[in-house]
């Protein structure tokens, strides 16, 4: 009797599974993020973002004529390349995933890309790796990212300054990978655009006195001082000292410097200064927040990017009409960029219909995605200026 019951249940289950399958097979996405390690406070929200996109597509039942989509989480650890590689290997060989959302940190992303993704021909879309080195990594067209490369900010900075008619600046940066990388990319972009960087000098964080650094910067001169540092650290010290000695009156601030603390520290003393930091006025952000609701904090860094990463993979599958990475990898750029109908979060079902009907789409998503160069986000920056001691938005670019 017992055996009989089991057999019936089993056959019923199989029947229903076969029924749901239709003719398509299931699609499985790996979500490899550092659930342990330095980024663990962000990765729950990031995975949540990706899973919302997966659920949305799965529930619409429109992908590849009714394929069910599921996500499998794996731990990249953010810092341990060996652990990340074996976790990704497991996703590909044991779980048979059709694409990977991740990884998060630039180091492990590079390791997974070369050891697993390229070796097995799996598409990878990272929501948060920003190292410029990944732009030139050997990827066989399999690697994309919905976060901009750090090098991009240097180009945007150059555009902002050139538009304001500044073509001679002094540059100081905090002495670490962030500061050095940003300073180098800015200097290269600025000089390529015909500007002059009179001096590029490092400063150490956590010092009380920056008079020697400011002395050197002042001597080199320039129309504006670019401070690629941190507002809570040496960056503010440099600005204070430069103002006190009358070395510079106006400054240019990249993302590490822009916060309410800057207004509080200097007020109207830095009127006329400029800056930019990542930000967008695209309606996608609000729609994403609406979808997330109370599930987690939708404004958590890289959570919207994660939604976009998963969505891009699934839309590209629809465009290629195949879940084979070697087929859909060529369609990611198409669905992400113009021309086509604009797609915001919550409209993935509509997008799948449009693609099936042969209409072009331009996936805007939660972060106004626009992929450039080797498949990385152009990024969106908010250009600001100081007026009356307050940060004012000039425009978004």
């Amino acid at each position, binding site marked *: 009797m017992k055996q009989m019951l089991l057999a019936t249940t089993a056959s019923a289950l199989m029947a229903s599974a076969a029924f749901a399958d239709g003719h398509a097979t299931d699609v499985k996405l790996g979500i490899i993020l550092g659930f342990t390690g330095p980024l663990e406070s962000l990765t729950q929200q990031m995975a949540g973002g990706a899973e919302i996109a997966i659920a949305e597509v799965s529930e619409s039942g429109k992908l590849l004529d009714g394929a069910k989509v599921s996500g499998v989480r794996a731990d990249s650890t953010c810092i341990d390349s060996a652990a990340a590689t074996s976790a990704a290997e497991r996703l590909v060989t044991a779980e048979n995933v059709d694409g990977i959302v991740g990884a998060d940190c630039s180091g492990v992303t590079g390791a997974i890309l070369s050891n697993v993704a390229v070796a097995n021909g799996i598409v990878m879309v990272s929501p948060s790796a920003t190292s410029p080195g990944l732009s030139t990594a050997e990827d066989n067209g399999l690697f994309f990212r919905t976060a901009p490369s750090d090098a991009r900010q240097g180009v945007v900075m150059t555009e902002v300054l050139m538009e304001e008619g500044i073509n001679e600046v002094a540059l100081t940066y905090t002495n670490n990978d962030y500061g050095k990388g940003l300073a180098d990319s800015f200097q290269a972009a600025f000089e390529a655009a015909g500007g002059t960087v009179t*001096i590029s*000098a490092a400063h150490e964080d956590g010092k009380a*006195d920056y*008079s*020697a650094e400011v*002395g050197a910067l002042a*001597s*080199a001169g320039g129309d504006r001082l670019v401070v690629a540092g941190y507002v809570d650290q040496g960056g503010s010290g440099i600005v204070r000292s430069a103002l006190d000695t*009358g070395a510079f009156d106006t400054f240019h601030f990249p993302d590490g410097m822009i916060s309410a603390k800057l207004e509080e520290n200097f007020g109207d003393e830095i009127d006329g200064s400029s800056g930019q930091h990542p930000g967008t006025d695209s309606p996608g952000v609000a729609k994403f927040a609406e979808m997330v609701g109370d599930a987690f904090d939708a404004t958590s860094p890289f959570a919207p990017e994660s939604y976009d990463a998963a969505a891009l993979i699934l839309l590209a599958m629809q465009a290629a009409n195949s879940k084979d990475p070697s087929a859909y990898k060529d369609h990611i750029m198409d669905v992400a960029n113009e021309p086509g109908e604009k797609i915001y979060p919550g409209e993935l079902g509509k997008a799948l219909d449009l693609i099936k009907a042969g209409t072009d789409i331009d996936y805007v998503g939660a972060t106004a995605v626009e992929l450039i160069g080797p498949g990385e986000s152009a990024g969106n920056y908010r250009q600001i200026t100081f007026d009356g001691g307050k940060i004012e938005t000039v425009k978004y670019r």
Partner: protein
Amino acid sequence: MDYINALVAFTNFVLVPGTAYGAQLALGALGVTLIYGILRFSNFAHGDTMAFGTMFVILITWAFQGAGISAGPVPTALLALPFGIALTGLFLIGTDRVVYRFYRKQRVKPVVMVMVSLGVMFIMNGLTRFIIGPDDQRFADGERFLITARNFREMTGLREGLAIKTTQGITVITAVIVVVLLFWFLNRTRTGKSMRAFSDNEDLALLSGINPERVVLYTWLIVAALATVAGTLYGLDKSFKPFTYFQLLLPIFAAAIVGGLGNPVGAIAGGFVIAFSEVTITYAFKKVATYVLPEALAPDGLAQLLSTDYKFAVSFALLIVVLMFKPTGLFKGQSV
């Protein structure tokens, strides 16, 4: 006119900050050198004593500010200074009773005392962070500037500005007053003379009836005053962060050793030598040179000897050179 511009630029970026920094180092080095001369060990806890004393001053300043007491254009911290010195003095004497006296009775070697002071340093460091936290604290108030760069430019019509902060002025004036008082005390008063006698020859001093515990007591009190004043001036002029005081230990020791350990005049000279070598060697002379030299000779580069990254390296290179050629320091101190 160009010569005046060059002079103003040099004064603004080298002379004024160098002088203020030098005065702060000199006060710190005086404390180190007194302990070395009289108690005969290198006090590694000195940087943290400065932080500890400054912490008291900051807390009292905040209380004063809260109660509406202010000193007008000068920082309120100056009013709080005597209280801070008293509290730091009490703490140092307590430390001496509990820790140093035990080892002094054992007549341990100086190197053991150094290690003991290292322990005291970590405890003070921890206490400071525990009480006031590891973050930046701002406690300067009153007028910020004696002359601002913009006003100077408007007044003189020169292209270069000259800024002198109130705190820089106060630093130099206070340092002069403190040094004059110290020398008067050491050379003219009975206690001061007994301290010098103790420093010169401990056994003879004891034979002539000088009470060693009294000498030790006064030394700690003076050190507390010097450390608190130096720390407060540094904090007012720059900013207060416990970790930077810990790092200050290096240039302070360099100053004391370059000047000659145990020699107060040497400590002052050493402070200024270290401060100016740090600032001038890393200064980019391009601006000054462009004003002074004829156009054809004006430098294209920055005319900077060393990048500012090497600031600390400068004081240590200087220290090594002095120790190699004049082990007792510029002014005859005790050999290290």
